[in-house]
């Protein structure tokens, strides 16, 4: 009875000739597979960590941008402000998903603590569109009928006080809850026009390092106490899908703009990870090719070695190869 092609080939392979090559090919193929899968896995993991919705709160999506203050710009306030053309240019960049102005106050602001705390300071207010604020609070609203102004403080500000100023001056450290509970006396003035409000801290922001008030209050107060001139913004905030986008980093560098460098640190990390993943993937592919080559050589060697011994079978093998699908 004529043996089948598979039986013949199996018999040839089982002779043991070139077994070391088969082991090498198997090892090579295994390592190549592992390297390729690691490259795919690492690439997917990094993408997932940077861009997935679940991790959206962990990655920096919002960047506050301002111009770098140089020695030449000192004393010239206008030079640190964004012109209409510069704003339009930023808005049309592909990496900008949303754009907002940071509006400054055009009046004097002072804050005083109530009772015997003897705290008084000049300060400033800024406002940003609500969609850019990381503090969600029902108290974050203001109408002209309200005498209480909700305020968001930067988290860094409280940390600086608690761990810098308070410790060095032997003053008590204050918790966030206490700060929220203390009503502040806020006085807004411009010339002879003065109005008093109660300021209440409603949250602490990690995203925007400024004293924030609602946009409706800023608009009303600037109209009432301001000089009537709409000032250009000196800081803007953008929402971007990928703060580590090298195009964004290059744009900021080219234009001489500044932002929180910590938020764009992923740009370098991403580049390093991409390089490592590419190198692993490349070596995996090369190794895979070599493993295939060794497999091929193994079969070649086995068949060549057995050519004389199994000449009759080989005749049938070749005959069957011509007709059978392997």
């Amino acid at each position, binding site marked *: 009875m004529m043996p089948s092609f*598979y039986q013949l080939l199996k018999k040839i392979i089982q002779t043991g000739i070139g077994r070391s090559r088969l082991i090498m090919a198997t090892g090579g193929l295994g390592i190549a*597979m592992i390297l390729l899968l690691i490259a795919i896995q690492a690439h997917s993991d990094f993408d997932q960590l940077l861009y*997935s919705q679940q991790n959206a709160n962990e990655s920096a999506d919002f960047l506050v941008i301002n111009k770098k203050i140089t020695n030449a710009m000192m004393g010239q306030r206008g030079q640190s402000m964004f012109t209409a053309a510069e704003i339009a240019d930023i808005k049309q960049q592909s990496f900008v998903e949303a754009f907002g102005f940071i509006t400054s106050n055009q009046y004097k602001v002072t804050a005083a603590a109530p009772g015997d705390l003897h705290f008084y300071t000049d300060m400033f207010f800024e406002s940003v569109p609500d969609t850019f604020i990381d503090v969600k609070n029902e108290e974050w609203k203001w109408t002209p009928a309200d005498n209480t102004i909700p305020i968001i403080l930067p988290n860094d500000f409280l940390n600086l006080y608690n761990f810098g100023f308070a410790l060095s001056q032997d003053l008590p450290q204050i918790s966030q809850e206490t700060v929220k509970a203390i009503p502040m006396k806020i006085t807004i003035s411009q010339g002879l026009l003065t109005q008093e409000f109660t300021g209440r801290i409603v949250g602490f922001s990690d995203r925007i390092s400024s004293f924030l008030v609602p946009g409706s209050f800023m608009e009303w107060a600037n109209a009432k106490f301001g000089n009537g001139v709409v000032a250009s913004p000196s800081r803007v905030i953008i929402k971007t899908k990928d703060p580590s986008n090298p195009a964004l980093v290059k744009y900021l560098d080219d234009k001489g703009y500044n932002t929180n460098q910590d938020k764009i640190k992923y740009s370098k990390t991403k580049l390093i990870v991409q390089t490592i993943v590419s190198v692993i993937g490349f070596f995996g592919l090369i190794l895979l090719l070599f493993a295939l080559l060794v497999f091929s050589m193994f079969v070649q060697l086995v068949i060549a070695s057995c050519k004389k011994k199994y000449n009759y079978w080989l005749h049938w093998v070749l005959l069957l190869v011509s007709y059978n699908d392997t």
Partner: protein
Amino acid sequence: MRQFVPLYIAIGIVALLLVAALQWWASKQLAGYDMVISPWIAAGTGIAAVIVIGLVYIVNRINIRKNINAIS
């Protein structure tokens, strides 16, 4: 060649197990940062493994046929 298929499957399973162990370790490490790695990534890697094994099978099959023809 069908004779090598069990070998390919064994290699694929070993590679997948090692990468799964790496993924498990990475997930544990990132848990401290409240970061999440989706299980779909592991599924994608599994599919990639099947594709690579399939390609290896096809290429080896072509090579072996070529070798046999050359020797004849």
